């Protein structure tokens, strides 16, 4: 049912000691979209994500998710509603195996996480699904590897698999391709495209190749405020955006990448 608004913020504002990092942002994300959030450094993208996931309390404004006001909920509550984020800096459980990392996410829906008297065996039936998810990101061969030992790109892929395990309705990705080689970038881009089936994705990304190839809609932030919002073609021609973000015309489509 595309077109329905899944997430909406109205007048969302965050101030740090007088410095306005996010300024009166009104944003609507449609169900099923891959929605990119771009903007120059320090525009407030990460802060905006932090507000959505409750890692920071907003100074003003409201966040509505599927018609429910979730402005004052706790991070974990929000996560259980189906809003899940990945971090700008890689976030895995380093001394657990790759499989256990994914299982950690699958386990949550089991409802036995407080059961300290159950054996570990009660989790084994999750392995099948975990391997499926790993296969989706090409990590099936690493299932029993300690996660610390994975190269950076693979960790990012793992993080994606873990996030998917939660069956999120809305995924928030903060620079998912940062720090990846070209090969990985295109793989992860395709991966995002793939997992976007049946869910909504809101992502921050500086790599214009990625944005242009998969984003349905783009919002541009500058100094905490929205300066443009719309499909890629439209936004990328917006002179204000070019001036503030993309830079001179020769790089227009490619970005710097």
């Amino acid at each position, binding site marked *: 049912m595309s077109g329905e608004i899944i997430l909406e913020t109205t007048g969302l504002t965050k101030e*740090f000691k007088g410095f306005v990092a996010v300024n009166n942002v009104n944003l609507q994300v449609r169900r099923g979209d891959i929605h990119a959030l771009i903007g*120059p450094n*320090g525009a*407030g993208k*990460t802060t905006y994500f932090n507000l959505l996931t409750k890692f920071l309390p907003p100074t003003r404004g409201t966040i509505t998710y599927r018609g429910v006001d979730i402005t004052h909920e706790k991070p974990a509550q929000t996560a259980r509603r189906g809003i899940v984020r990945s971090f700008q800096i890689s976030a895995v459980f380093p001394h657990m195996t790759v499989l256990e990392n994914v299982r950690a996410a699958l386990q949550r829906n089991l409802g036995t996480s407080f059961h300290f008297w159950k054996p570990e065996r009660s989790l084994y039936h999750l392995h099948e699904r975990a391997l499926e998810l790993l296969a989706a990101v090409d990590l099936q061969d690493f299932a029993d590897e300690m996660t610390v030992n994975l190269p950076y790109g693979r960790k990012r892929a793992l993080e994606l698999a873990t996030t998917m395990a939660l069956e999120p309705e809305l995924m928030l990705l903060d620079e998912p391709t940062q720090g990846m080689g070209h090969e990985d970038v295109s793989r992860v881009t395709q991966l995002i495209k793939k997992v976007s089936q049946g869910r909504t994705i809101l992502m921050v990304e500086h790599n214009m190749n990625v944005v242009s190839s998969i984003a349905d809609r783009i919002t541009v932030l500058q100094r905490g405020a929205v300066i443009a919002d719309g499909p890629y073609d439209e936004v990328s021609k917006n002179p204000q955006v070019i001036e503030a973000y993309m830079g001179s015309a020769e790089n227009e489509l490619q970005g710097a990448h």
Partner: protein
Amino acid sequence: MAAELLKIDNLHAWYGESHVLHGVSMTVAEGEVVSILGRNGAGRTTTLRAIVGLTGSRKGSIRIGGHEAVKLPPHRIARLGVGYCPEERGIFASLSAEENLLLPPPVGAGGMSLAEIYDMFPNLKERATSPGTRLSGGEQQMLAVARILRTGARLLLLDEISEGLAPVIVQKLAETIRTLKAKGYTIVLVEQNFRFAAPLADRFYVMEHGKMVREFARHELSANTGMLQEYLGV
């Protein structure tokens, strides 16, 4: 060819027990911009860290301006005129942005002034009194680069400096590097972003599994695209 400012010979380096560099050799002439390419985990970061002495243990030879540096502690290496911008940025949370900027002691003459730096990165001026790590990801990246431009180091080791920056800023950074080159700085550029590095570097090294496997000059670039495709997937 101008004098060699940096000459690495058969360099091995370890993190704890894991052997990461397996005999790296490379040279960088004074005033040159050299870029090291390679996949994730090839050992590029480790090469830079080994030069400044931040890996576990090292073996082989690193000559900087004629001085053997492989046995020196990091602070002595820096004093040879080396400026290092780490991949993880290394911004200090307990120092304000400006204090971060002023932190590295001068190691040579002719560093940029604070005004020049603020001119180049106006964001930093605006956030000067914020604690360093409260800056946005990109602002921190700028800070990390700006920080070593002040010290007067003549040999700059830059690790993934275009990472996470908006395209406009990346362009600005490219200009900065050109300016620095014009001023005679010597630069080693580790970049994932080939399009950023390509127009800037005089020479390229390609790294794989802790070794330099290819070396070519800019004018050989087009001849090497096939090879790069193979090594990097560009």
